[in-house]
C-alpha cells in the first residue's frame, strides 16, 4: 500500500512539474497524472481493506472512532468554509480599496435588463489577470454579471470575434457583452468597467448644447486645459452633446435638456444672452462655469435669477500646493458641502473637490418661493480679494481687513415661473471640469451630478468609482540593488548562520 501511494504521488509530482514547466499538458504529464491517480486510488482501496482486517474487537472501535473524528473534521471544515463563503465577509486592505464596489456600479448592475457577461482574455504569464479576475468576481457578487476567463491562445477565435489580436498585448482585456452588443475595456478598473456598462445600456439622457466661439472651453481639445474629458463623461452617461456657435444662436431649441456654458473669454453677443434669457424664462436648464477676470455677460444673465459673481478671487488657506508658480491659497480644496442637496449629500470632508482659481458667487432670492442654495463652499478661513493679479504672480495674498467666512464656489437655483421649472447651476471656476482636474479627487462626481440635477436626471446622481489605478512606476530608493543585496541583503542570513554555528559548537563542546 505504501509503495503504491508513494509511487502514485511521485508520478503526480512529475506530471505536474512537467505541466508547469512546459505550460501545457503533454503526453508525459497526462500519463503520469493518470497513473499517479490510479495508483493512489488503488492504495486507498488497499488501505481501507487493510483497516477492515486489523486487529480484534478491541481495535475496531479505536479505528472507527479515529475515522469518525476525521470525517467530522472534514464535514465541519467544509460546512464552515461554505458558510463563510456564502456570507461573503471580506476586508479589502488595498491602499485604494480596489475591490470595494461603489454604489454607482451596484446601481448600474442592478439596472441591467439581463445579466452581462465579462470575458477576461488572459495570457497565462500575465500577473495582472489575478487582480482583474478578483475585481470582476467582486462585481459579479453583486449580481447581473457572469465572469469567464478566456485563454487567449486556446480560444483565438473568441478574441477575433471581439476584434482583439490574440497576442500578449490583448491580455488583461475585458470584453463586456450585453445581448448582442459589447464594449472593450483595455485597462480594467472598477471605473472603466462601470463606464463600459453604462455605455452598453445606451441610456438616453437627452441633448445638451455646449456653446463655443467666444473663447469658451474647448470641448474637443484633449490638452490639459481642454474639456474633452468632460464631454466624454457626459456622453458615457447617456447625453447627446451638441456644440453650437454662440454668436449664431438666436434661440435655444425646444428639445434641449440643458445648455452648458464653459467660461467664455469674450463677451457674449446681446442676442445670445437674450436667447439664453428667453430659454430660462420658459423653464430652461443652464449650467455655467465662470472664471475670475472675465466679464462675459453671464453675470448680467444670472443677476435676475439671484446669482451674482463679483470679479474677485477666493483665497483659502485650505488650498492645494499646485506648484511654485502659483500664489498661495488660490487652488482651493473644498470640503464644505450642502448636506441636504441631492448633488452633494454623499460628499463629506473626505471627498474633497479641487477649484484652481475661483471667483465667489453671491446669492439673493428674487422671489420668496425661489430656492437658491450654496452647494459647495470654501473653508471658514477664506476671504475675497479684488486683486486679480494674484492669478499671475507668486507669493501669499495679504490678510483681509474684513472678517473671513465661507465663500460660495458652486450654487444652484430652482425657480417656478408660469408653471415651469427653471434650474441653474453656477460654478465659480471652470478648471474644475478641465481635463487636468476633472479626474482629480471628486471633481467628476460633482460636475456630472450637477449636470444630472440640472437636467432632472436625479437617479443618475451617484459617486463613481475611480478610473485610474494607483501604480508605483518609479525606481525604488534602493538604487543599486546589487549593492543593496551585498550590503543589507546578506546581513540577516549571516547573523542566522553565526547563530547556528555557535549552537553547533556549544553542543559539540558539551
Amino acid at each position, binding site marked *: 500500500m505504501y509503495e503504491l501511494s*508513494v509511487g502514485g*504521488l511521485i508520478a*503526480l*509530482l512529475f506530471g505536474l*512539474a512537467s*505541466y508547469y514547466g512546459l505550460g501545457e*499538458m503533454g503526453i508525459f*504529464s497526462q500519463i503520469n497524472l493518470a497513473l499517479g491517480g490510479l495508483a493512489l486510488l488503488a492504495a486507498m482501496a488497499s488501505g481501507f481493506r487493510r483497516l477492515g482486517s*486489523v*486487529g480484534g474487537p478491541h*481495535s475496531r472501535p479505536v*479505528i472507527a*472512532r*479515529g*475515522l469518525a*473524528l*476525521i470525517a*467530522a*473534521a472534514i464535514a*465541519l*471544515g467544509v460546512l*464552515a*468554509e461554505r458558510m*463563510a*463563503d456564502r456570507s*461573503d*465577509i*471580506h*476586508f479589502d*486592505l*488595498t*491602499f485604494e480599496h480596489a*475591490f470595494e464596489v461603489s454604489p454607482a456600479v451596484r446601481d448600474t448592475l442592478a439596472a441591467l435588463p439581463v445579466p452581462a457577461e465579462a470575458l477576461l482574455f488572459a495570457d497565462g504569464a500575465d*500577473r*495582472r489577470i*489575478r*487582480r482583474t479576475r*478578483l475585481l470582476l468576481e467582486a462585481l459579479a457578487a453583486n449580481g447581473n454579471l457572469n465572469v469567464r476567463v478566456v485563454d487567449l491562445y486556446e480560444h483565438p477565435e473568441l478574441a477575433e470575434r471581439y476584434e482583439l489580436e490574440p497576442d500578449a498585448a490583448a491580455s488583461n482585456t475585458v470584453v463586456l457583452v450585453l445581448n448582442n452588443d459589447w464594449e472593450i475595456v483595455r*485597462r480594467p478598473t472598477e471605473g472603466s468597467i462601470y463606464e463600459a456598462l453604462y455605455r452598453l445600456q445606451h441610456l438616453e439622457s437627452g441633448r445638451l448644447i455646449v456653446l463655443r466661439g467666444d473663447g469658451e472651453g474647448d470641448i474637443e481639445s484633449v490638452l490639459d486645459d481642454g474639456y474633452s474629458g468632460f464631454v466624454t463623461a457626459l456622453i458615457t452617461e447617456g447625453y447627446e452633446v451638441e456644440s453650437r456657435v454662440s454668436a449664431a444662436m438666436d434661440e435655444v431649441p425646444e428639445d434641449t435638456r440643458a445648455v452648458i456654458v464653459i467660461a467664455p473669454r469674450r463677451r457674449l453677443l446681446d442676442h445670445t444672452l437674450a436667447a439664453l434669457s428667453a430659454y430660462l424664462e420658459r423653464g430652461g436648464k443652464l449650467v455655467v462655469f465662470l472664471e475670475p477676470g472675465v466679464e462675459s455677460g453671464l453675470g448680467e444673465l444670472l443677476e435676475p435669477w439671484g446669482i451674482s459673481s463679483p470679479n474677485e478671487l477666493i483665497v483659502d488657506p485650505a488650498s492645494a500646493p499646485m506648484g511654485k508658480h502659483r500664489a498661495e491659497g488660490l487652488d482651493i480644496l473644498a470640503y464644505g458641502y450642502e448636506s441636504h442637496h441631492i448633488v452633494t449629500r454623499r460628499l463629506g470632508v473626505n471627498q474633497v473637490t479641487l477649484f484652481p482659481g475661483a471667483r465667489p458667487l453671491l446669492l439673493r432670492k428674487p422671489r420668496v418661493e425661489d430656492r437658491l442654495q450654496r452647494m459647495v463652499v470654501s473653508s471658514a478661513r477664506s476671504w475675497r480679494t479684488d486683486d486679480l493679479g494674484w492669478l499671475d504672480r507668486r507669493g501669499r495674498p495679504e490678510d483681509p481687513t474684513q472678517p473671513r467666512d465661507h465663500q460660495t464656489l458652486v450654487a444652484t437655483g430652482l425657480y417656478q415661473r408660469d408653471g415651469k421649472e427653471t434650474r441653474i447651476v453656477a460654478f465659480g471656476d471652470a478648471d474644475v471640469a478641465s481635463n487636468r482636474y476633472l479626474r482629480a479627487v471628486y471633481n467628476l462626481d460633482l460636475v456630472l451630478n450637477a449636470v444630472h440635477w440640472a437636467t432632472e436626471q436625479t437617479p443618475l446622481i451617484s459617486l463613481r468609482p475611480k478610473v485610474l489605478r494607483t*501604480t*508605483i*512606476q518609479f*525606481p*525604488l*530608493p534602493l*538604487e543599486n*540593488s546589487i549593492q*543593496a*543585496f551585498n550590503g543589507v*541583503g*546578506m546581513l*540577516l*542570513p549571516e547573523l*542566522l*548562520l553565526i547563530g*547556528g*554555528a555557535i*549552537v*553547533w559548537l556549544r*553542543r559539540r563542546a558539551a
Partner: protein
Amino acid sequence: MALVRKDLASLFGAPTAYLALTMIALVTALIFFDHLRQYNLMLFLVTTNTMGGFDFGTIPETINLWDRVFSPVMDSLGLMLVGAIPLITMRVFAEERVRGTDELLITTHLTPTRIVLAKFTVTYAFVALMMAVSFVYPMAAIEQGGVGIEHLAAVFMGLLLLAWGVASIGLVCSAFTSSQLVAAVSGWAVAFVLWDFSWANAFVSDEIARFLEALALYPRFAAFSEGIVSLANLVYFAALALVALSLARFSFDLRRVGA
C-alpha cells in the same frame, strides 16, 4: 506545554533550524533583489527610450513595482514554501518513530491529541519565524515604495497561512511513515497537487473545476496577495489544519492497534 518547550529546545538546540532560516533568508534576498534590479533596469530603459521621464502614462502599465517585483517574489516565495517546508516537517513524527520515542510519549499521561497539538504548535511557530525572516526585504522595500501597510499585512497573513497549510500537509505525511524521505516526498507531492488545479480545467466540467479550485491552496493565497482578507479563506486554512490534526491523531490510533 512541557512537550512544546522540549520540542522547541530540541529544534533550536540543533544547527539545522538556523541553517533552514539562513537558506530561506538568503534565497528570498536573492530572488527579491534580482527582481528589483530587473525592475529598475527596465524602468530606466523605458524612460530613456521614450524620453517621457516618470510622468504618468509614459510607462507601460505592466511595468510597475507590484506586478514586476512584489507579486512575483511572493509567488516564488509561496512555491518555495512547498519545497522547503516538507523538509522541515519530515522529521517531526518520523524521527520519533525511528527512535521509538513516540512509544515512550504514548505511555506517559499525554493523550495522542495533546502530543499532536504540541508538535503542530512547535512547527507552526518555527514556520512563522521563517516567514518573518523571509518577509523582511520585500516589506522594507515596498514600504519605501508607498504601498499601504494594511496590504502588506494581508500578504504576510496569506503567506503565513499558506506556510501553515503546507506544514499541516507535511506533518500528516510525517505522521504516517517512519521514513523521513518518504515523508518529505509525499509532503511535496500532496502540497504540489493541492497547489493549483487549473491544469485540470481542460478535462473536467465547470462545476468540477470550481470544486477543485475551492480545494486548491494557490487561489486562496492569491486573494491575500491582492489585499483581500476573506472569512472563507481564513476558514479554509483553519479547516485544513483541523483535518490535518485529526489525521495525524489517527496515525497514533493506528500505532496503538498495531496497524
